């Protein structure tokens, strides 16, 4: 089995927030914590595009790299999870994450940050599968029930695909071939691109500026 991945088709997302609602309902996510949300670009302008954003379970996850207590781990299925018993709520992962996935519930007065909470790909955490402890800390473990994330399975337009990376990319490729447009997958390169070893990703050199019309040589 390949790695578990998310893919959001901006051509199909209708900003219904069904994914965010499904996530909230499935995991009993507390008020103020949004494991998944829908972002709309050029809102109100004709041709606006929406995408559903959550933890992408990156191949080279920056949150894992910056965590000072090393509470993150990656399962064999490629799901990035963390141990809430170890998390100190420092917020480093939030600064490192390119998707703004880590969330921090308020744990007391004066805006005190609680332990980090994020999308688990509906895979629970390091507790006994489907136990009350696992649900309380991480939410429901659908993966252990042989199911895919609730957000992807609930998506009415199937804009959000979740599951085995090979399968969902094949579904998307088939879709793009049939409709003939919209092959760009936002966030896919950031999350699953080749590891850069901490360096900035290589960029193509900027094209040389064309000489201005009428400029004297």
């Amino acid at each position: 089995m390949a790695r578990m991945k998310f893919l959001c088709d901006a051509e199909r997302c209708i900003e219904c927030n069904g994914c965010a609602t499904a996530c909230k309902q499935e995991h009993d996510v507390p008020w103020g914590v949004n494991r998944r949300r829908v972002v709309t670009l050029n809102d109100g302008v004709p041709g606006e595009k929406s995408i559903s954003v959550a933890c992408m379970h990156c191949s080279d996850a920056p949150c894992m790299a910056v965590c000072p207590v090393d509470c993150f781990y990656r399962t064999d299925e490629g799901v990035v999870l963390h141990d809430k018993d170890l998390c100190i709520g420092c917020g480093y992962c939030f600064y490192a994450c390119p998707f703004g996935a880590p969330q921090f519930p308020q744990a007391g007065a004066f805006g005190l940050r609680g332990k980090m909470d994020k999308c688990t790909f509906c895979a629970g955490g390091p507790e006994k599968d489907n136990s009350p402890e696992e649900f309380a800390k991480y939410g429901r473990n659908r993966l252990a029930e042989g199911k895919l994330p609730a957000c992807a399975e609930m998506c009415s337009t199937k804009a959000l695909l979740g599951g085995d990376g090979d399968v969902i990319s094949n579904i998307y490729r088939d879709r793009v071939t049939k409709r003939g447009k919209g092959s760009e997958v936002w966030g896919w390169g950031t999350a699953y691109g080749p590891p850069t070893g901490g360096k900035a990703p290589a960029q193509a050199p900027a094209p040389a500026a064309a000489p201005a019309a009428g400029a004297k040589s």
Partner: protein
Amino acid sequence: MKRGFTLLLLAGVFALPLSGCGEGAQVIVYKQGKYQGKPDTKPWDNDQFKGNQVAWETAIKTRNQSQNEYTRAE
């Protein structure tokens, strides 16, 4: 019998003040770059799949394919 009990009591009395000496470290020692939390089980190691990885993968593949409405409609 009584002597044995007294000896046991005395041993206990002498051992009590030393019981604090065997206390383990109270602070977690972090190893740089390695996961420090509790171990997690595989998604198929539970009552439903009973360790059958193939059954779990089949269930996931079926769910995965149901996301493709092009094939569902055919």
